[in-house]
């Protein structure tokens, strides 16, 4: 089993960008995304000696850690406040100009719509478009593959409505 594992550096190089994107789609600032991404890989590094590919793919394993770290972040940084902003659609604090200049996001507006979706819909879209299969999304979200597909499609429609409302 260990022989099938990529080296941690390979895993890091392959997935760091995708994990960052997944996290960034859910938090409001690049600084938060960096902090959470760092925590994800610190945690992954500590746990990698015990990781086995028998039960879960490396990608799903990493995204599980990322999902937990993001949840912890929301808990620690005032989930209630974020929900209030979401409901009221209030503008949120933006990145510092230097951070915005350096971060590479071409579809910032679209991801802001993703960020305000209900939690499970947001996760379904973020995980799916981070490259995970519906089976992997289902494993991470504790549901079947079919349920993950349905959740994703509901999320997609909700996102489309959110975008349309924004355009209107």
């Amino acid at each position, binding site marked *: 089993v260990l022989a099938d594992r990529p*080296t941690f*550096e390979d895993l*890091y*190089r392959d997935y*760091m*960008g*995708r994990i*960052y*994107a*997944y996290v*960034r*789609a859910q938090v409001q600032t*690049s600084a938060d*995304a*960096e902090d959470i*991404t*760092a925590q994800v*890989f*610190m945690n992954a*590094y500590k746990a990698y000696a015990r990781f086995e590919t028998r039960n879960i793919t490396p990608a799903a394993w990493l995204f599980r850690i990322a999902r937990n770290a993001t949840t912890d972040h929301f808990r620690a940084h005032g989930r209630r406040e974020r929900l209030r902003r979401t409901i009221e659609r209030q503008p949120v604090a933006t990145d510092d100009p230097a*951070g915005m200049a*350096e*971060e*590479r*996001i*071409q*579809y910032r507006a*679209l*991801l802001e719509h*993703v960020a305000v979706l209900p939690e499970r819909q947001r996760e379904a*879209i*973020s995980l799916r*478009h*981070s490259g995970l299969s519906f089976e992997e999304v289902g494993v991470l979200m504790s549901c079947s593959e079919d349920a993950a597909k349905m959740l994703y*499609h509901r999320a*997609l*429609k909700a*996102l*489309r409505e959110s*975008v349309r409302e924004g355009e209107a």
Partner: protein
Amino acid sequence: MSEEEDIDLLALQRQLDDAFETTRPRRGFEDELWLRIQTRRPFWQRLQDLLAGVVETLREVPAVPAAAVATVLILAIGLGILARSGVHLGVGGASNTTSATAPLSFGSNRAMAPNSFGRLPSVALYPGVPAPHAAGTPFAEDGSALAASPIPSNLYFGPATLSWIGQFPALSAPALVYRYQEPPTVLADQFATSLGAGPGKPIPLTPGYLGSYVAQDFGLSITKSWPAPPREPRFFLTPVGVGPSAGDPQTAATAFLATHSLLPTAPYTVAVVPFTVQGQSANYVRVQYLREFQLPDTSTAFLVGPLGDRYGTEVVFVEGRPYIADGPLPVNLDSASYPLITASQAIQHALASSPSGSQDINPKPVVKLDRVELVYALAVSGAQGFYEPAYLFSGTFQYQGQTMEKRVLVPAIDPSQLNS
């Protein structure tokens, strides 16, 4: 769902794909985070990685037959041996050197009467000599010994037919021998305190350690002496966290050592050696402060290690940031003068020397030794270490299209003053 709605959703999916694909952190974040991960690791794990990487690199270098490099188990303590490996692998770029002089001092020194140390242990090269696992060597957290350091593929220490065709330098006799007493734990504690570090997590299975310490921004380990291959007590400092990427490595290394009060006080020459580690894409640079000993004629002689390579204090940079620093623990040195052998005696001893390594090339190579350098080498005996003058002879020969270097180390002290 209408066809129009389907097209809308497909378009949205494509935009999401693009959005996630193009969402990436700022430039430099990936390497910064990788370095943060690495700098959280204790020094022996970093060392293990580096050694393993170098071992892999060496395996890929076409060289002498496997039998000739099979016994490559010098258990490395510190990056000094790595440094030597790196230089001879040719994996680095150019090295530049500058000189600096400082008072000859590891703490306070005392001059002793001639020959006052009595008979001395003899210095030698130690290619392919593994350090026993039982004691005195660093261990990984699981108790296994660290990776072994191989002999660089272009060095040969096996049997050869030798002749001398070089010019012997003028001798400066007699020369001084320097002696230290094995430092107690309390000295290691004092050294750590002077750097601002306090007691850290005990290292498991570590008979070779004097102590382990932590400070706010670095970890510190101090190891004891070891007799064969000989090494002096050494410190290993590993920064925690990531500072800004430094510019010029030599300037950065000097500033880093000065910040931690670790700049050598003895004479040294600086060498900057970029190197690569198999399987790692990061940029590694080693800045070495090669230890020198003052000779009576005001010139200096370099300190050499188990393979005849110069060593001293060094700082390894990864992606421009300090990764690990190690060097001799500052200890008091006594000195005493000893008579040196003559040039003709030194040449005779070199030509008659036994192979120092178990490498074997058939037929036995014919090597014309054409260079000799007065150096200092370490011999450890009991609770004392001795830095003794020696002659390092070398010459090259061709083997399977590769230029190989043969090295012979001859003690410069009169044999009557050496233990048999």
